[in-house]
Protein backbone atom coordinates (compact mmCIF):
# COMPACT_ATOMS: atom_id res chain seq x y z
CA UNK A 1 0.00 0.00 0.00
CA UNK A 2 2.49 2.57 1.10
CA UNK A 3 4.62 2.57 -1.99
CA UNK A 4 6.10 5.94 -1.28
CA UNK A 5 8.37 6.18 -4.28
CA UNK A 6 11.14 7.14 -1.89
CA UNK A 7 11.97 10.57 -3.15
CA UNK A 8 15.52 10.73 -4.43
CA UNK A 9 15.13 13.89 -6.36
CA UNK A 10 12.18 15.66 -7.84
CA UNK A 11 12.47 14.17 -11.30
CA UNK A 12 12.83 10.62 -10.02
CA UNK A 13 9.60 10.87 -8.12
CA UNK A 14 7.75 10.99 -11.42
CA UNK A 15 8.99 7.54 -12.34
CA UNK A 16 9.72 6.03 -15.71
CA UNK A 17 8.20 7.52 -18.87
CA UNK A 18 7.65 5.59 -22.10
CA UNK A 19 7.37 6.88 -25.64
CA UNK A 20 6.71 4.33 -28.40
CA UNK A 21 8.00 5.24 -31.85
CA UNK A 22 7.10 2.06 -33.69
CA UNK A 23 4.90 -0.92 -32.91
CA UNK A 24 3.85 -3.76 -35.17
CA UNK A 25 3.67 -7.52 -35.06
CA UNK A 26 7.43 -7.92 -35.36
CA UNK A 27 8.97 -5.18 -33.27
CA UNK A 28 8.31 -2.42 -30.82
CA UNK A 29 10.63 0.55 -30.49
CA UNK A 30 10.34 2.75 -27.48
CA UNK A 31 12.16 5.31 -25.46
CA UNK A 32 12.38 4.85 -21.72
CA UNK A 33 13.15 8.16 -20.06
CA UNK A 34 13.43 9.62 -16.59
CA UNK A 35 15.03 6.38 -15.61
CA UNK A 36 18.30 4.83 -14.61
CA UNK A 37 20.69 2.57 -16.47
CA UNK A 38 20.44 -0.25 -13.94
CA UNK A 39 16.65 -0.17 -14.17
CA UNK A 40 16.70 -0.22 -17.98
CA UNK A 41 19.40 -2.86 -18.26
CA UNK A 42 17.73 -5.29 -15.89
CA UNK A 43 14.61 -5.13 -18.03
CA UNK A 44 16.72 -5.76 -21.13
CA UNK A 45 18.40 -8.76 -19.53
CA UNK A 46 15.13 -10.27 -18.39
CA UNK A 47 13.51 -9.87 -21.82
CA UNK A 48 16.46 -11.67 -23.36
CA UNK A 49 16.83 -14.56 -20.98
CA UNK A 50 14.04 -15.13 -18.52
CA UNK A 51 10.63 -15.02 -20.19
CA UNK A 52 9.08 -18.48 -20.42
CA UNK A 53 8.18 -19.77 -23.88
CA UNK A 54 7.80 -23.19 -25.45
CA UNK A 55 10.23 -25.05 -27.71
CA UNK A 56 10.87 -28.57 -28.92
CA UNK A 57 13.09 -30.30 -26.39
CA UNK A 58 12.86 -34.00 -27.14
CA UNK A 59 12.77 -35.67 -30.55
CA UNK A 60 12.12 -39.33 -31.14
CA UNK A 61 13.12 -40.35 -34.62
CA UNK A 62 11.37 -43.32 -36.14
CA UNK A 63 12.63 -42.96 -39.66
CA UNK A 64 15.25 -40.70 -41.17
CA UNK A 65 16.64 -41.51 -44.57
CA UNK A 66 17.41 -37.87 -45.38
CA UNK A 67 20.98 -36.69 -45.80
CA UNK A 68 20.91 -34.92 -42.42
CA UNK A 69 21.95 -36.69 -39.24
CA UNK A 70 19.30 -37.26 -36.56
CA UNK A 71 20.85 -34.84 -34.07
CA UNK A 72 21.22 -32.19 -36.76
CA UNK A 73 17.49 -32.35 -37.47
CA UNK A 74 16.68 -32.41 -33.76
CA UNK A 75 18.70 -29.23 -33.29
CA UNK A 76 16.89 -27.49 -36.15
CA UNK A 77 13.54 -28.53 -34.72
CA UNK A 78 14.43 -27.06 -31.35
CA UNK A 79 15.03 -23.67 -32.91
CA UNK A 80 11.65 -23.46 -34.64
CA UNK A 81 9.51 -20.76 -33.00
CA UNK A 82 6.32 -22.16 -31.50
CA UNK A 83 3.38 -20.05 -30.41
CA UNK A 84 3.73 -19.41 -26.68
CA UNK A 85 0.32 -17.86 -26.08
CA UNK A 86 -0.98 -19.25 -22.81
CA UNK A 87 2.32 -20.80 -21.80
CA UNK A 88 1.67 -19.56 -18.25
CA UNK A 89 -0.87 -22.35 -17.97
CA UNK A 90 1.71 -24.96 -18.86
CA UNK A 91 3.83 -26.54 -16.13
CA UNK A 92 7.56 -26.93 -16.32
CA UNK A 93 8.20 -30.60 -17.04
CA UNK A 94 10.56 -30.80 -14.07
CA UNK A 95 7.77 -29.60 -11.78
CA UNK A 96 5.05 -31.85 -13.19
CA UNK A 97 3.91 -34.94 -11.33
CA UNK A 98 3.88 -37.11 -14.43
CA UNK A 99 6.87 -39.16 -15.35
CA UNK A 100 8.38 -37.79 -18.49
CA UNK A 101 5.74 -35.64 -20.07
CA UNK A 102 2.00 -35.18 -20.28
CA UNK A 103 -0.51 -32.67 -21.63
CA UNK A 104 -0.06 -30.44 -18.57
CA UNK A 105 3.65 -29.93 -19.20
CA UNK A 106 4.22 -30.51 -22.90
CA UNK A 107 2.87 -30.36 -26.43
CA UNK A 108 3.44 -33.21 -28.82
CA UNK A 109 4.15 -32.55 -32.49
CA UNK A 110 4.47 -35.04 -35.32
CA UNK A 111 6.39 -34.78 -38.54
CA UNK A 112 6.01 -37.30 -41.30
CA UNK A 113 7.14 -36.56 -44.82
CA UNK A 114 8.10 -38.80 -47.71
CA UNK A 115 9.20 -37.65 -51.11
CA UNK A 116 7.11 -39.61 -53.53
CA UNK A 117 7.46 -37.33 -56.54
CA UNK A 118 10.45 -37.17 -58.82
CA UNK A 119 11.65 -33.82 -57.62
CA UNK A 120 13.26 -32.86 -54.33
CA UNK A 121 10.78 -32.11 -51.60
CA UNK A 122 10.92 -29.35 -49.02
CA UNK A 123 9.78 -29.94 -45.48
CA UNK A 124 8.67 -26.82 -43.64
CA UNK A 125 7.63 -26.03 -40.10
CA UNK A 126 4.07 -26.16 -41.40
CA UNK A 127 4.40 -29.89 -41.74
CA UNK A 128 4.96 -30.11 -38.02
CA UNK A 129 1.54 -30.96 -36.65
CA UNK A 130 0.53 -30.64 -32.99
CA UNK A 131 -1.31 -33.72 -31.81
CA UNK A 132 -3.17 -34.70 -28.67
CA UNK A 133 -4.47 -32.65 -25.79
CA UNK A 134 -3.22 -29.12 -25.31
CA UNK A 135 -3.59 -26.38 -22.73
CA UNK A 136 -5.17 -24.26 -25.43
CA UNK A 137 -5.68 -24.46 -29.17
CA UNK A 138 -2.66 -22.41 -30.21
CA UNK A 139 0.05 -23.21 -27.70
CA UNK A 140 2.90 -25.05 -29.41
CA UNK A 141 1.74 -24.48 -32.99
CA UNK A 142 4.66 -23.46 -35.21
CA UNK A 143 4.67 -19.76 -36.04
CA UNK A 144 4.49 -18.72 -39.68
CA UNK A 145 5.49 -15.19 -40.49
CA UNK A 146 6.27 -15.63 -44.19
CA UNK A 147 3.72 -14.68 -46.81
CA UNK A 148 3.13 -18.29 -47.88
CA UNK A 149 2.60 -19.44 -44.33
CA UNK A 150 5.12 -22.24 -44.59
CA UNK A 151 7.42 -21.32 -41.75
CA UNK A 152 11.12 -22.13 -41.67
CA UNK A 153 12.53 -24.82 -43.95
CA UNK A 154 13.53 -27.81 -41.83
CA UNK A 155 15.08 -30.11 -44.40
CA UNK A 156 14.91 -31.33 -48.00
CA UNK A 157 14.21 -34.84 -49.24
CA UNK A 158 15.31 -36.56 -52.42
CA UNK A 159 12.85 -38.89 -54.16
CA UNK A 160 12.35 -41.92 -51.98
CA UNK A 161 13.66 -40.37 -48.78
CA UNK A 162 11.51 -40.13 -45.69
CA UNK A 163 11.47 -38.63 -42.22
CA UNK A 164 9.10 -39.65 -39.47
CA UNK A 165 9.51 -38.28 -36.00
CA UNK A 166 7.75 -37.23 -32.84
CA UNK A 167 8.66 -34.07 -30.93
CA UNK A 168 7.97 -33.08 -27.37
CA UNK A 169 7.84 -29.32 -26.83
CA UNK A 170 8.37 -28.09 -23.30
CA UNK A 171 8.27 -24.85 -21.39
CA UNK A 172 11.57 -23.19 -20.59
CA UNK A 173 13.57 -19.99 -20.48
CA UNK A 174 16.51 -18.82 -22.57
CA UNK A 175 18.89 -19.11 -19.64
CA UNK A 176 18.65 -22.84 -20.14
CA UNK A 177 18.86 -22.74 -23.94
CA UNK A 178 18.61 -19.87 -26.44
CA UNK A 179 15.81 -21.66 -28.29
CA UNK A 180 13.45 -20.45 -25.57
CA UNK A 181 14.26 -16.78 -26.18
CA UNK A 182 11.13 -14.84 -27.18
CA UNK A 183 13.20 -12.01 -28.64
CA UNK A 184 15.29 -12.24 -31.76
CA UNK A 185 17.25 -9.19 -30.71
CA UNK A 186 16.91 -6.29 -28.34
CA UNK A 187 18.40 -3.00 -29.41
CA UNK A 188 19.54 -0.96 -26.45
CA UNK A 189 21.06 2.46 -26.86
CA UNK A 190 21.60 5.66 -24.93
CA UNK A 191 23.46 8.94 -25.31
CA UNK A 192 23.49 9.05 -29.14
CA UNK A 193 25.97 11.92 -29.20
CA UNK A 194 28.35 10.14 -26.85
CA UNK A 195 28.38 13.15 -24.56
CA UNK A 196 29.08 10.91 -21.59
CA UNK A 197 32.04 9.37 -23.41
CA UNK A 198 31.06 5.84 -22.49
CA UNK A 199 32.21 4.92 -25.98
CA UNK A 200 35.67 5.47 -27.37
CA UNK A 201 35.07 5.62 -31.12
CA UNK A 202 37.73 4.23 -33.39
CA UNK A 203 38.56 6.47 -36.35
CA UNK A 204 41.07 7.09 -39.14
CA UNK A 205 41.09 10.88 -39.12
CA UNK A 206 37.79 12.16 -37.77
CA UNK A 207 35.29 10.12 -35.76
CA UNK A 208 32.45 12.54 -36.50
CA UNK A 209 32.84 12.22 -40.26
CA UNK A 210 33.40 8.47 -40.28
CA UNK A 211 30.61 7.27 -37.97
CA UNK A 212 27.02 7.62 -39.13
CA UNK A 213 24.80 9.45 -36.63
CA UNK A 214 22.50 7.29 -34.55
CA UNK A 215 18.87 6.96 -35.53
CA UNK A 216 18.12 8.78 -32.25
CA UNK A 217 20.66 11.56 -32.73
CA UNK A 218 17.91 14.04 -33.59
CA UNK A 219 16.04 13.17 -30.38
CA UNK A 220 18.69 14.67 -28.17
CA UNK A 221 20.48 17.97 -28.10
CA UNK A 222 23.86 17.72 -29.83
CA UNK A 223 26.85 18.92 -27.81
CA UNK A 224 27.76 22.56 -28.14
CA UNK A 225 31.08 23.53 -29.65
CA UNK A 226 33.68 23.56 -26.91
CA UNK A 227 31.18 22.41 -24.27
CA UNK A 228 33.01 21.33 -21.11
CA UNK A 229 32.64 17.69 -20.08
CA UNK A 230 30.02 17.15 -17.40
CA UNK A 231 31.51 14.73 -14.89
CA UNK A 232 28.24 14.35 -12.99
CA UNK A 233 26.08 13.48 -15.98
CA UNK A 234 24.42 10.07 -16.04
CA UNK A 235 22.31 8.52 -18.78
CA UNK A 236 18.56 8.75 -18.28
CA UNK A 237 17.04 8.15 -21.72
CA UNK A 238 17.20 4.68 -23.21
CA UNK A 239 16.15 3.53 -26.66
CA UNK A 240 14.85 -0.02 -26.88
CA UNK A 241 14.15 -2.00 -30.02
CA UNK A 242 12.49 -5.26 -29.09
CA UNK A 243 12.25 -7.67 -32.00
CA UNK A 244 10.18 -10.81 -31.61
CA UNK A 245 11.33 -14.20 -32.79
CA UNK A 246 7.69 -15.13 -33.29
CA UNK A 247 6.67 -17.05 -30.19
CA UNK A 248 5.33 -13.95 -28.41
CA UNK A 249 4.29 -10.59 -29.87
CA UNK A 250 6.85 -7.85 -29.13
CA UNK A 251 4.66 -5.87 -26.76
CA UNK A 252 3.97 -9.02 -24.77
CA UNK A 253 7.72 -9.53 -24.46
CA UNK A 254 7.97 -6.15 -22.78
CA UNK A 255 5.06 -6.68 -20.43
CA UNK A 256 6.10 -10.24 -19.59
CA UNK A 257 9.64 -9.02 -18.92
CA UNK A 258 8.30 -6.51 -16.45
CA UNK A 259 6.20 -9.19 -14.82
CA UNK A 260 9.11 -11.60 -14.44
CA UNK A 261 11.24 -8.89 -12.89
CA UNK A 262 8.48 -7.91 -10.48
CA UNK A 263 8.07 -11.52 -9.45
CA UNK A 264 11.79 -11.80 -8.74
CA UNK A 265 11.67 -8.72 -6.53
CA UNK A 266 8.48 -9.80 -4.80
CA UNK A 267 10.08 -13.15 -4.06
CA UNK A 268 12.87 -11.36 -2.23
CA UNK A 269 10.44 -9.16 -0.30
CA UNK A 270 8.49 -12.22 0.70
CA UNK A 271 11.56 -14.12 1.90
CA UNK A 272 12.97 -11.13 3.74
CA UNK A 273 9.63 -10.51 5.42
CA UNK A 274 9.38 -14.10 6.63
CA UNK A 275 10.10 -14.40 10.31
CA UNK A 276 9.96 -10.66 10.74
CA UNK A 277 6.53 -11.05 12.24
CA UNK A 278 5.89 -7.34 12.61
CA UNK A 279 3.74 -5.38 10.27
CA UNK A 280 6.67 -4.06 8.32
CA UNK A 281 5.86 -6.00 5.21
CA UNK A 282 2.22 -6.46 5.86
CA UNK A 283 1.06 -6.10 2.33
CA UNK A 284 3.49 -8.71 1.07
CA UNK A 285 2.87 -11.39 3.64
CA UNK A 286 1.15 -14.47 2.44
CA UNK A 287 1.55 -16.25 -0.81
CA UNK A 288 0.65 -13.30 -2.93
CA UNK A 289 2.78 -12.29 -5.82
CA UNK A 290 2.60 -9.05 -7.74
CA UNK A 291 1.30 -11.07 -10.64
CA UNK A 292 -2.12 -10.67 -9.13
CA UNK A 293 -1.49 -7.20 -7.89
CA UNK A 294 -0.65 -5.93 -11.30
CA UNK A 295 -3.57 -7.75 -12.81
CA UNK A 296 -5.77 -5.06 -11.42
CA UNK A 297 -4.10 -2.57 -13.68
CA UNK A 298 -5.09 -4.57 -16.67
CA UNK A 299 -1.56 -5.71 -16.83
CA UNK A 300 -1.36 -9.25 -15.55
CA UNK A 301 -3.35 -10.74 -18.37
CA UNK A 302 -1.87 -12.21 -21.44
CA UNK A 303 -3.99 -10.54 -24.02
CA UNK A 304 -2.16 -8.11 -26.20
CA UNK A 305 -3.37 -5.88 -28.94
CA UNK A 306 -1.56 -8.14 -31.36
CA UNK A 307 -2.72 -11.36 -29.78
CA UNK A 308 -5.11 -12.25 -32.54
CA UNK A 309 -3.57 -10.76 -35.59
CA UNK A 310 0.15 -10.81 -35.38
CA UNK A 311 1.05 -14.04 -33.81
CA UNK A 312 -1.40 -16.42 -35.24
CA UNK A 313 -1.11 -17.16 -38.87
CA UNK A 314 -4.21 -16.90 -40.95
CA UNK A 315 -2.91 -19.83 -42.90
CA UNK A 316 -4.23 -22.70 -40.83
CA UNK A 317 -7.56 -22.98 -42.59
CA UNK A 318 -6.53 -21.99 -46.06
CA UNK A 319 -3.95 -24.65 -46.70
CA UNK A 320 -6.29 -27.17 -45.27
CA UNK A 321 -5.28 -30.20 -43.41
CA UNK A 322 -1.72 -31.28 -43.31
CA UNK A 323 -2.19 -34.61 -41.71
CA UNK A 324 1.53 -35.06 -41.40
CA UNK A 325 1.32 -37.14 -44.46
CA UNK A 326 3.35 -36.56 -47.53
CA UNK A 327 3.49 -32.91 -48.41
CA UNK A 328 3.07 -32.02 -52.02
CA UNK A 329 5.68 -29.34 -52.14
CA UNK A 330 7.94 -31.02 -54.64
CA UNK A 331 6.47 -29.34 -57.63
CA UNK A 332 6.94 -25.70 -58.38
CA UNK A 333 9.73 -25.26 -55.85
CA UNK A 334 12.56 -26.92 -57.66
CA UNK A 335 14.36 -23.62 -58.01
CA UNK A 336 15.37 -24.14 -54.43
CA UNK A 337 17.22 -27.36 -54.74
Amino acid at each position, binding site marked *: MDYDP*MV*MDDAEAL*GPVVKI*SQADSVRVKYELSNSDI*AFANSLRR*VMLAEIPTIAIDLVEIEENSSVLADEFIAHRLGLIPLNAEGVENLLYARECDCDGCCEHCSVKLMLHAKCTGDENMHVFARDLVPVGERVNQVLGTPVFSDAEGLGPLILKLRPGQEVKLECIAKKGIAKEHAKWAPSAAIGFEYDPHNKLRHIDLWYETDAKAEWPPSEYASWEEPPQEGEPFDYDAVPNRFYFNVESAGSLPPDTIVSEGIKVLQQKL*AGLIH*ELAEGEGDGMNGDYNGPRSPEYGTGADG*FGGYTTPFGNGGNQSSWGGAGGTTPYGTTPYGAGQSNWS
Partner: protein
Amino acid sequence: MNAPDRFELFVLAEGEKKITEKVVSGMSNCSDFILLKEDHTLGNLLSAYLKMAPHVMMAAYKIGHPNVPEVLLRVQTDGSITPREALVTVCKQLVAMYGQLGREFQKELALRQYADQGEHAGGAGGAPGGGPSGQNGF
Protein backbone atom coordinates in the same frame (compact mmCIF):
# COMPACT_ATOMS: atom_id res chain seq x y z
CA MET B 1 28.40 -36.64 -18.95
CA ASN B 2 28.83 -35.12 -15.51
CA ALA B 3 27.67 -31.69 -16.66
CA PRO B 4 25.13 -30.19 -14.28
CA ASP B 5 21.61 -29.59 -15.55
CA ARG B 6 21.38 -26.15 -17.07
CA PHE B 7 18.31 -25.26 -15.08
CA GLU B 8 20.48 -25.39 -11.97
CA LEU B 9 21.44 -21.87 -13.04
CA PHE B 10 18.03 -20.56 -12.02
CA VAL B 11 16.14 -23.21 -10.04
CA LEU B 12 16.80 -23.45 -6.31
CA ALA B 13 18.01 -26.87 -5.22
CA GLU B 14 16.25 -28.81 -2.46
CA GLY B 15 16.45 -26.86 0.79
CA GLU B 16 18.12 -23.78 -0.65
CA LYS B 17 16.84 -20.35 0.29
CA LYS B 18 16.63 -17.56 -2.27
CA ILE B 19 18.15 -14.99 0.04
CA THR B 20 20.01 -15.24 3.34
CA GLU B 21 21.32 -12.47 5.50
CA LYS B 22 24.71 -12.66 7.17
CA VAL B 23 25.64 -9.89 9.55
CA VAL B 24 29.14 -8.59 8.88
CA SER B 25 30.82 -8.61 12.27
CA GLY B 26 33.65 -6.16 11.64
CA MET B 27 31.41 -3.34 10.46
CA SER B 28 28.54 -1.50 12.09
CA ASN B 29 25.02 -1.83 10.64
CA CYS B 30 26.31 -3.97 7.84
CA SER B 31 24.97 -7.17 6.32
CA ASP B 32 25.79 -9.44 3.45
CA PHE B 33 22.86 -10.88 1.53
CA ILE B 34 23.51 -14.02 -0.43
CA LEU B 35 21.15 -14.47 -3.35
CA LEU B 36 21.17 -17.96 -4.77
CA LYS B 37 20.42 -18.71 -8.43
CA GLU B 38 20.49 -15.06 -9.39
CA ASP B 39 22.82 -12.94 -11.52
CA HIS B 40 23.66 -9.35 -12.50
CA THR B 41 20.00 -8.69 -13.32
CA LEU B 42 19.18 -8.41 -9.62
CA GLY B 43 22.68 -7.76 -8.29
CA ASN B 44 23.32 -4.63 -10.29
CA LEU B 45 19.73 -3.39 -10.00
CA LEU B 46 19.60 -3.71 -6.21
CA SER B 47 23.05 -2.34 -5.53
CA ALA B 48 22.42 0.65 -7.82
CA TYR B 49 19.14 1.50 -6.10
CA LEU B 50 20.49 0.87 -2.61
CA LYS B 51 23.23 3.39 -3.32
CA MET B 52 20.54 5.97 -4.06
CA ALA B 53 18.41 5.09 -1.04
CA PRO B 54 18.34 7.25 2.09
CA HIS B 55 20.19 6.00 5.18
CA VAL B 56 22.33 3.66 3.09
CA MET B 57 26.04 4.36 3.51
CA MET B 58 27.37 1.69 1.23
CA ALA B 59 26.04 -0.94 -1.14
CA ALA B 60 27.90 -3.22 -3.51
CA TYR B 61 27.56 -6.63 -5.10
CA LYS B 62 29.79 -9.26 -6.57
CA ILE B 63 29.43 -12.49 -8.44
CA GLY B 64 32.38 -14.53 -7.24
CA HIS B 65 32.64 -16.76 -10.29
CA PRO B 66 30.82 -16.46 -13.62
CA ASN B 67 29.82 -20.12 -13.53
CA VAL B 68 28.39 -19.94 -10.04
CA PRO B 69 24.92 -18.36 -9.92
CA GLU B 70 25.34 -16.63 -6.58
CA VAL B 71 25.21 -12.94 -5.82
CA LEU B 72 26.74 -11.38 -2.73
CA LEU B 73 25.18 -8.05 -1.85
CA ARG B 74 26.72 -6.00 0.95
CA VAL B 75 24.70 -3.19 2.51
CA GLN B 76 25.72 -0.80 5.26
CA THR B 77 23.30 1.73 6.73
CA ASP B 78 23.67 4.71 9.03
CA GLY B 79 21.94 2.83 11.83
CA SER B 80 18.52 4.45 11.65
CA ILE B 81 17.27 1.46 9.65
CA THR B 82 18.65 -2.05 9.30
CA PRO B 83 20.21 -3.25 6.04
CA ARG B 84 17.32 -5.67 5.71
CA GLU B 85 14.80 -2.84 5.96
CA ALA B 86 16.73 -0.84 3.39
CA LEU B 87 16.69 -3.78 1.00
CA VAL B 88 12.97 -4.43 1.46
CA THR B 89 12.19 -0.76 0.86
CA VAL B 90 14.24 -0.72 -2.32
CA CYS B 91 12.60 -3.92 -3.59
CA LYS B 92 9.14 -2.47 -2.97
CA GLN B 93 10.10 0.74 -4.68
CA LEU B 94 11.35 -1.18 -7.71
CA VAL B 95 8.20 -3.31 -7.92
CA ALA B 96 6.20 -0.09 -7.96
CA MET B 97 8.45 1.51 -10.55
CA TYR B 98 8.28 -1.47 -12.89
CA GLY B 99 4.54 -1.49 -12.38
CA GLN B 100 4.40 2.11 -13.47
CA LEU B 101 6.58 1.31 -16.46
CA GLY B 102 4.16 -1.43 -17.47
CA ARG B 103 1.17 0.87 -17.18
CA GLU B 104 2.92 3.64 -19.11
CA PHE B 105 3.81 1.16 -21.82
CA GLN B 106 0.27 -0.17 -22.15
CA LYS B 107 -1.12 3.35 -22.19
CA GLU B 108 1.25 4.42 -24.97
CA LEU B 109 0.49 1.26 -26.92
CA ALA B 110 -3.26 1.78 -26.68
CA LEU B 111 -2.82 5.36 -27.88
CA ARG B 112 -0.81 4.15 -30.86
CA GLN B 113 -3.30 1.48 -31.73
CA TYR B 114 -6.03 4.05 -31.63
CA ALA B 115 -4.05 6.35 -33.92
CA ASP B 116 -3.17 3.51 -36.29
CA GLN B 117 -6.77 2.44 -36.52
CA GLY B 118 -7.75 5.90 -37.61
CA GLU B 119 -5.08 5.83 -40.25
CA HIS B 120 -5.70 2.43 -41.75
CA ALA B 121 -9.44 2.58 -41.14
CA GLY B 122 -9.61 -0.82 -39.52
CA GLY B 123 -7.01 -2.45 -41.76
CA ALA B 124 -6.17 -6.06 -41.02
CA GLY B 125 -3.81 -5.91 -38.11
CA GLY B 126 -1.02 -8.35 -38.67
CA ALA B 127 -1.28 -9.93 -42.07
CA PRO B 128 1.35 -12.59 -42.61
CA GLY B 129 4.63 -11.01 -43.44
CA GLY B 130 4.71 -7.85 -41.45
CA GLY B 131 1.42 -6.32 -40.51
CA PRO B 132 0.88 -2.59 -40.42
CA SER B 133 4.26 -1.00 -40.27
CA GLY B 134 3.65 1.78 -37.84
CA GLN B 135 6.14 4.08 -39.46
CA ASN B 136 4.54 7.29 -38.32
CA GLY B 137 7.44 8.14 -36.04
CA PHE B 138 8.11 11.46 -34.50
